[in-house]
């Protein structure tokens, strides 16, 4: 088995506890304020796991980006396109300095299929995001 696969399995089974320097070196990236992580309309299928900092989930309207919501540490972003195979529906922009781990869709598929804990994590994360969005829709 390759080192990369072993690292992926470490993340699959140990999640946050499995993150060490080696994994950060291989999968980590730091974004600075206002840098774009994901662009609306793109087809790329990288998945981002936020380790530190926050990101804006935005939608471009004219020349401005309207903020739909803000996501922070521990959140996974970009997974929606992985599952429903659609293009990116939002632009994700760093709010200050952001540290992430970035996975290819193949790595992500390995992580996801190896451990049911990740399934739970997605169910809960998506449920919370839906709840938050309905609450926000009611505040407008």
């Amino acid at each position, binding site marked *: 088995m390759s080192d990369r696969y072993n690292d992926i399995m470490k993340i699959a089974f140990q999640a946050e506890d499995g993150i060490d320097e080696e994994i950060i070196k291989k999968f980590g990236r730091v974004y600075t304020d*206002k840098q774009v992580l994901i662009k609306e309309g793109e087809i790329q299928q990288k998945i981002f796991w936020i380790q530190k900092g926050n990101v*804006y*989930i*935005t*939608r471009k*309207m004219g020349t*401005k*980006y*309207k*903020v*739909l919501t803000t996501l922070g540490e521990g959140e996974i972003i970009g*997974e*929606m396109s992985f*599952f*429903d195979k*659609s293009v990116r*529906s*939002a632009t994700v*922009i760093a709010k200050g300095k952001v540290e992430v781990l970035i996975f290819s869709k193949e790595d992500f598929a390995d992580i996801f*299929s190896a451990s*049911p804990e990740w*399934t*739970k994590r*997605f*169910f*809960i994360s*998506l*449920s*919370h*995001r*839906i*709840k938050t*969005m*309905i609450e*926000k*829709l*009611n505040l*407008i």
Partner: protein
Amino acid sequence: MEKRESYLQYGREIIFEPGSVIYKSGSRPSKNAILYIVAGLVKIEVGLKDGTKFPLYLQPDNVFGIVEPLSECARLTNAFSMEKSLLYAWDIEDFYLASSISWELTYISITGLTRFLRILNAEFGEKLGLIKERTI
């Protein structure tokens, strides 16, 4: 295709007559709150405080009712049976168990959630377009 009996065995069967209410917004989720459509047609209706309502129609092999039990909140939407519908209902633990043994169930459940979130995001984006809201 996996045999759906493999994951339905952890749920219990419920039949809803045409036009009947499956749950109402504001009600507490019942014990077996997560539902799978075996047959029939279900309408999920998001009703907002400003009177806006938007429906989502779900056919067989869709899962709904996940959001509230996992967010530990009251129902955020209404759900109606539009035809005679045969559903399977799980409690949270049985749903996790069923999804852990079935990639198919996991996949249809997650894509159901991502589709719903995309619809809500689009609705929110449209509403934001009409008002002055934070931009960057």
